[in-house]
């Protein structure tokens, strides 16, 4: 099934007239008035509904396909979270209404802060960052603010492992820091000796994901924390992989000073085709004064927004209001439905699924990047051998998986493992689904042996075949140019 552009459905003079009032004329000075109407589609309500419904069907999604995209935690998004966040009272609440008119909403936010403190072992939580990357920014900005407040102005270096998400170094740069990269060992742990050499009086802090993007737990984390802290730096925890340890071990207990959480991963808010995310931050005692505002405070049985007046050392505001409130409501509902025991089961069963997949794939002859390690909630296999021997690389496997009805794992990340597939099943997938995926990988390898070109030509059964990314970047076509007829 293919679907034309909405502009190709458009005809002059048409619109969904039930959707707007009629007959009003604005009073605008002529010089400021628009002369040409914008090129928006002119379609009926049915045409719009049909077009976008058909477009939706062109997507793979959790609700339709197993989606083991490593590092993205594509777990089931409970429908109850959406339903409750969409209660009319929540939807119609203006962000700048008085606190007295928002006690119901604020109580949810306050309790969410408290629960996130509990699961991370931190002392304070601010919910305002609108995505993981903004949470990272807030974290590093707080580290910077902390050093500045102490007059420790030369601390501008941020240490990152080479396996770190690209957002980590990018964030450090945004905060005016330089990045010191340290290598990973063949075991997947970071090179502790290199770390010891890297720290010093310029060290602002270190950004770590633990378990790392290599899918393994950093075993010497306590020593890492000691070394960095002794050098005067702070530890930043990238919560991308929090799902792996929820209820098992807490970043605060590991020695981290600040953490961001990806609520759309660990707490199952929707990924929405690329967003919204939500990147709440947690801090320990010494970073409390620097949290981004607003934060919900409780006084007696009343809730109120704390702002710059309450937190004069805050790193400031990161969004026009208070972040992705509707996402936070979804995370709140999810956490209440999981409850105490459910939180631990997240880590347990995501680890069970990942380790099971890893074991079966190793048994089937695939090459694990870290064969002697436990998988966290995800793991890496490398197709280096297949690429060399069969001419079929990780991307070919990924594309062919689509034909088998599975979304591909993350490909070519982390960068330091060649031809890698980063596979994260999540705890909400069943053994049967996982078995079917493993069987597909095995079948594709068999296809590759017999007919490499077939695999390299994949996918065949999707709305399009493999797309020309080079052309996309060279012959930029970013907007539809023909005007509607």
């Amino acid at each position, binding site marked *: 099934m293919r679907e034309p552009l*909405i502009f190709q459905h458009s005809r002059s003079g048409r619109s969904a007239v039930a959707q707007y009032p009629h*007959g*009003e*004329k604005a*009073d*605008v000075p002529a010089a400021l*008035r628009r002369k040409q109407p*914008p090129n928006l589609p*002119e379609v009926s309500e049915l045409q719009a509904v049909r077009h976008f419904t058909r477009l939706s069907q062109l*997507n793979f999604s959790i*609700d339709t*396909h197993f989606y083991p995209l490593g590092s993205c935690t594509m777990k089931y998004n409970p429908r109850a979270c*959406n339903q409750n966040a969409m*209660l*009319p009272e929540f939807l119609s609440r203006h*962000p*700048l209404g008085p606190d007295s*008119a928002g*006690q*119901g909403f604020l109580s949810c936010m306050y309790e969410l802060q408290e629960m996130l403190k509990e699961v991370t072992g931190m002392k304070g939580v601010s919910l305002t960052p*609108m995505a993981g*990357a903004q949470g990272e920014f807030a974290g590093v*900005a707080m580290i910077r603010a902390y050093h500045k407040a102490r007059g420790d102005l030369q601390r501008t270096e941020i240490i990152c492992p080479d396996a770190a998400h690209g957002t980590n170094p*990018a964030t450090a*740069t945004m905060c005016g820091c330089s990045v010191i990269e340290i290598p990973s060992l063949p075991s997947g742990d970071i090179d502790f000796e290199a770390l010891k050499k890297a720290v010093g009086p310029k060290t602002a802090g270190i950004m770590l994901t633990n378990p790392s993007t290599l899918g393994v737990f950093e075993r010497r984390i306590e020593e890492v924390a000691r070394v960095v802290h002794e050098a005067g730096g702070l530890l930043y925890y990238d919560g991308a992989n929090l799902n792996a340890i929820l209820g*098992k*071990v*807490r970043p605060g207990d590991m020695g981290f000073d600040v953490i961001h959480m990806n609520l759309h991963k660990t707490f199952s808010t*929707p*990924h929405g085709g*690329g*967003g*919204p995310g*939500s990147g709440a931050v947690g801090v320990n005692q010494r970073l409390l004064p620097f949290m981004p505002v607003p934060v919900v405070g409780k006084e007696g049985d009343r809730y109120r927004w704390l702002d710059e007046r309450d937190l004069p050392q805050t790193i*400031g505001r990161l969004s026009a*209001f208070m972040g992705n*409130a*509707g996402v936070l*409501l979804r995370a709140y509902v999810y956490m*209440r*439905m999981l409850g*105490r025991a459910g939180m631990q089961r997240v*880590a347990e*069963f995501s*680890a*069970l699924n990942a380790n099971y997949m890893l*074991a079966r794939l190793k048994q089937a002859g695939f090459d694990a990047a870290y064969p002697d390690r*436990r*998988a966290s909630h995800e793991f890496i296999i490398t197709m280096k051998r297949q690429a060399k021997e069969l001419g079929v690389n990780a991307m070919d496997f990924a594309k062919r998986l*689509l034909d088998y009805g599975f979304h591909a794992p993350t490909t070519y990340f982390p960068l330091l493992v060649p031809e890698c597939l980063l596979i994260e099943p999540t*705890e*909400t997938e069943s*053994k049967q689904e996982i078995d079917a995926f493993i069987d597909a990988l095995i079948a594709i390898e068999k296809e590759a042996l017999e007919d490499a070109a077939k695999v390299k030509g994949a996918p065949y059964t999707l*709305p*399009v*075949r493999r797309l*020309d990314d080079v052309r996309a970047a060279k012959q*930029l076509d*970013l907007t*539809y140019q023909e005007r509607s007829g």
Partner: protein
Amino acid sequence: MPFIPHTDTDVKEMLAAIGAPAIDSLFDEIPASLRIQSLAGIPEALTEMEVNRLMQSRAQRDGRPLNFIGAGAYEHHIPAAVWAIVTRGEFYSAYTPYQAEASQGTLQLLYEYQTMMASLTGMQVSNASLYDGASALAEACLMAVRANRKSKSARILVPTTVNPTYLEVSRAIAEGQQLTFETVAYTPGTGTTAASAFNAYSGQDITAVVIQHPNFFGLLEDVDAITDWAHANGALVIAVVNPMSLAILKPPGEWGAKGVDVVVGDGQPFGVPLSSGGPNFGFMTTRMEHVRQMPGRIIGRTVDLDGKPGFTLTLQAREQHIRRSKATSNICTNQGLLVTAGTIYMSLLGASGLEQVASTCQRRTSELVAALTKVKGVKLAFAGPRFHEAVLQLDRKVSDVIEALASRGIIGGFDLSRRYPELGNALLVCATETRTDEDIAAYAKALAEVLK
């Protein structure tokens, strides 16, 4: 076990395949000293039925008061079709289209969105969205520093009629990269920014000038003159706009002789509920010459192996997952779901529908102002042409009035006293197309009672 599909048999078989005696042993690489056994502070699980009752009671506590605030978030009618489609699993539970072939729905929609936003703002290219309007302004300022190669100062001029929170957010995000923001005062009598106010900076190295239009007071700025001043002085122009206003106002691409360089704003008015302020979506459009400096996801149309058209993420070389510490931004998501809402909204309304909504908003606010200024103790602060917000001055402390109105089921407006003390007891009010004659009369009646 909520959301866990494993049967006891599954668990046994899986552990056997792993060769692990128990699930807990999968965590044996974590130092024992760090392991926790429970999360005492987390309440026990609720069933969905219980959580529904809980959330309904919380929601009912807040009720559905009659809203007259805008100040950056606007209550508009949202067609039922919008969220019926947005919440379809295929949009709701998909992710960033890393596998383009399996995400053509999202990608085509984003391409359509980019086309609509570029046209609406009068620019050539659009990204696939940013977090919100405030952070989009911050990103635009950072982008301007990269794009304006002639300027070395990283100085940004910002009229005080720009949404003060947008400025705060820009400072919080961009000052780490040594940008400086300098404010330009509005003319007290008019509430707008005179082009002449910029003359103090003539001849200086200014990287960019920000213009919000309509401004935070809802008033129309002299956008042509300010744009021309900026360009004459080597500065880029960043427009901050309410996209709804562009249905009736000249697009930033046509401001002044050359048009602005970057346009940002918040897409919330297009199909996104107020929802306590988020998630919204920020938009950004620019000229083609700046496209490689633009942050955020960008979708391009290309062809597949068979030569058939298709859509894919493009210009990824700008992004953090490739360029790491040299990326244009650390952004790695957009607000896909909200852009989906916005795109469906724009498709349903079309240019003529948007024009009607925008026009009605303007009329309604005029009617609101007329009704409220009839109340003793209320006057209009600025009389010039406006879109759909207005500043009122009261003879009473604004926060008290707001609380008194709230107890009558009316959210009366945004208190400007703290941000603009010079305006006295100033209240920013707004009426969109959703406010009826009866709503306005109810507000006027309540206000008269409160101010009696």
